[in-house]
């Protein structure tokens, strides 16, 4: 029966959606951040940002995996919780593209804090938002 095959999948989906987020009370940027970038109302590009604090510097990668792009610049201003990241990646055509991300952390004390701002690739500025997993 269709219902029997669908139900486990639904339960799994609910379980995944309801999965708790582990507390992370150390450096606010440490961890995996999922989200997207793209023009307002236009097609969005999924993005994973992984960052760690090595006691002196923020070390991070955009989309870890085969197409990973390391962050060349990663700065956090704790006066206003703004961030500035830079990386050298590739555009949709495979051509080199300099990426600049500027944003601000919201819900700083929440496990699900967010970074919202802009993603500039070459001369094109888009919106950017990621949420800590």
């Amino acid at each position: 029966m269709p219902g029997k095959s669908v139900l486990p999948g639904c339960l799994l989906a609910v379980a995944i959606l309801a999965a708790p987020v582990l507390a992370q009370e150390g450096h606010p940027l440490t961890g995996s951040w999922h989200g997207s970038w793209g023009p307002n109302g236009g097609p969005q590009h999924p993005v994973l940002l992984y960052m760690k604090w090595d006691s002196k510097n923020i070390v991070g990668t955009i989309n870890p995996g085969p197409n990973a792009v390391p962050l060349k610049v990663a700065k956090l201003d704790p006066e206003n919780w703004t961030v500035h990241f830079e990386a050298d990646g590739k555009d949709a055509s495979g051509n080199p593209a300099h990426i600049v991300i500027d944003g601000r952390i919201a819900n700083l004390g929440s496990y699900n804090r967010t970074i919202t701002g802009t993603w500039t690739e070459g001369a094109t500025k888009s919106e950017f938002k990621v949420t800590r997993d």
Partner: protein
Amino acid sequence: MRGCAPRLILALGVGLAAMPVWAHHELAAEFDDQRPVTLKGTVTKFEWNNPHVYFFVDVQDARGSIANWALELASPSELNNSGWSRESLQVGDLVTVEGNLARDGTTLAQAKTVIVASGQRLSAPTSEALRAAPRPVGASKPAPRWPDGHPRLGAAPGETGYWANPSAGSLVETTAGEIGMNANGLLANLGDAGKVAPFQSWAKGLYEYRQRTLLKDDPMVSCLPPGGPRMFQVPHGVRVLEQPDRQRIFITSGGGNHNWRLIYLDGRPLPTSEDVSPTYFGYSDGKWEGDTLVVTSVGFNERFWFSNGGLPHTENLKLTERFSRPDFNTLRYGVTVDDSGAYTRAWTSSWTLEWIPNQDLEQYFCQDNPRDEPHMVGKQ
């Protein structure tokens, strides 16, 4: 029992002006002491549970609508010590409740005074009252010792007791001077934040954010453990269980969920970061230096606040703790914090705890009935 009622009649002076009760987290993030409320109605339920006792009251407004209000009190053990019992209120009692409204605008308030139909006034314990209350402190005498001469940090055979009532509310660097803060580490003056510890800039910013928002994001609200030195700062105390035959010491927290840590005294080496999965209490080795137990701990995770007040730490955290018992009634605790990820240098803090004789830790499980988390809105 109603026969206990005379014990419940406490001074009127501990009314609305008093500080909130002691709790396993800061209550200022949940209740606004600038918004007092008086509610009159009928008790519909009395929950005698940890971490907070609640009672519920049907309150009728001017238009005749009835709302069921939740009224929060301290923990059962704190109320017991202030003369309350699980029989203090009965379903059907007509009561007048004075308290403070919840910051989130829901039908929730912190009860400070309950006046029952007979006119008896039941007051919730305040932090000042709990600290000032007479304690069953034993007579001053030397610290008990093991046959090998080391001081006993726990109870001697045939006795019971535990350590509580810390002299400090939060970690503060020993050289910082006097810094005003409450028992939960909430600063009286946010401008003192930079004096508390030698923070890196991000850690100072995060500490100030936590202070500014009245500690609303404290992981202990979610019943996560008080790891590190915080174990010796939270209400309900700690119990030390020494096992010299097995060369180890257990320390059990009276708060949290009776979380415990283990200190090895057999000389084993500390693990490296590759060898150990980070935990709330880390991995601890201890050795005696004269009458002082020196404990080194590593392997902490980043999922908790290691001190009241919200001081941040990283997985680099290494603690060197020094325990001594200068007399029967006093445990002296000192800690050196070495965390290059959050602080610019190592720093030290210390305080004392009092021996509570002839009592044992009461059963306390934060997860029994935690209701606070959705109401911890703090200040933005």
